[in-house]
């Protein structure tokens, strides 16, 4: 594909084809986003816009869940996508999918902001929980909802202590040592618990996917 023709194509052209495939279940969103991230790395701002359209709502949900303040979470999403723009070339598909790269950048920025708050401010923010307004996205809502429900069912199927370990690792951004201090468990137990929790979650998600296939 030459740059000349790429410039003539409407935003998300390739993605639209891949999105159709994703809707039909023949290719995951993760695979659909990898070419987009390559285009972002090459300086294509329209590819970044398409990536934003795909992930901004999930990124904002994660940032909001961590920070409990919508306008601050929106600032984080903005910072995160600017960072994706700058760091797209560093994406290594061996380490995870393109979508996990984008969401991980946003989560990381949200956790940075959470850590920069004082502990008193953190406590206030944690208690003053804003309730987000549901805003399903057009076209993908059914697919995304099914995926979410699958993960929620899988999370609910985990033992409470494993689910707690996932919460503390992912949403509170605690290190293994901090989790051990908070729960009073030995460090080795925390390590094992997080590993087992994620392995079990991955296996449950595999089962859910298999059962969902026609």
């Amino acid at each position, binding site marked *: 594909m030459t740059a000349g023709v790429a410039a003539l194509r409407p935003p998300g052209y390739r993605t639209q084809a891949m999105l159709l495939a994703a809707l039909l279940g023949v290719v995951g969103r993760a695979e659909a986003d990898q*070419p987009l991230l390559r285009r972002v790395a090459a300086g294509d701002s329209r590819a970044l816009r398409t990536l934003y359209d795909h992930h901004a709502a999930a990124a904002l949900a994660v940032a909001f*869940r961590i920070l409990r303040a919508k306008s601050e979470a929106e600032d984080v999403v903005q910072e995160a996508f600017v960072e994706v723009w700058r760091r797209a070339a560093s994406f290594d598909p061996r380490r995870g999918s393109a979508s*996990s790269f984008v969401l991980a950048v946003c989560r990381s920025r949200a956790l940075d902001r959470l850590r920069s708050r004082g502990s008193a401010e953190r406590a206030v923010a944690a208690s003053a929980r804003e309730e987000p307004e549901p805003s399903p996205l057009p076209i993908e809502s059914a697919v995304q909802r099914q995926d979410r429900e699958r993960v*929620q069912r899988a999370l609910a199927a985990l033992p409470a202590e494993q689910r707690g370990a996932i919460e503390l690792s992912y949403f509170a951004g605690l290190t293994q040592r901090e989790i051990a201090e908070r729960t009073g468990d030995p460090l080795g137990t925390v390590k094992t618990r997080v590993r087992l929790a994620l392995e079990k979650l991955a296996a449950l998600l595999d089962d859910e996917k298999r059962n969902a296939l026609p």
Partner: protein
Amino acid sequence: MTCVEFKEIAALFAAGALDPPERSAAEQHLGEPTHDGCFEALRRASDTWDAVGRSLPPLRPDARVWQGIASRIEQKPRAAAIRTWTGWAVAAALALAVVGVQGARIRAERRAATLGAASAERDQCARDLAEARSDAVLQREALALLASPSTQVVALAPQQAGASITARALVNLPSRAAVLYAAGPPAPSGKDYELWVIRGDKKLPAGLLRTQPSGAILARIDPALLSETPDALAVTVESAGGAPQPLGPIVLVGALPHT
């Protein structure tokens, strides 16, 4: 750190939950040339954490969020872009100096080379544009099929263990329209994927499947092949250019429900 040790902590590493010394050791380990499943474990962990994040109900950002991103990426071109631009500027200055010294003959040769390159670029653009238009038409057809209540989604099941090609077909028999979407690696060198419409004991060739660089395959099934209800669709691997009858291994098969 060994591969076994890395895989033990891959979940914590992917979540950024390791303490700094262990994180450094893990990064160092990933830089080693050979691994026994380390990246596979890391990718699985990363994608599972990603699923955790996406289990939350999505929130639509305010329009100002994108506006802020757009203005910031315009103001701050990336270092690579700056380097590229600087590089072009330096190259242009050097080229001018060379042209000035070596005279008109070299200028003429360069002009001819530039014209040749531009001509090749124009031809490539024309091919890409034709391909883009063709794909856009197919996409519109697929979207129309998705919107129709009489469209059936047919899953084509892999016939070989470990097959990584997957496919779905959108089939609308009343309007004799069908589009196939597949994803997977390209056919082996010297081979092509060929689509077949199966009716009774007849196996009707329905075209070769072209894999795009993204791994997606999009193909329209000839309406004439849908004049009578097919029993199934199948994909085989044939010699390059295809075959009038299937000779190669069957990789995908999907039965059409008869209503």
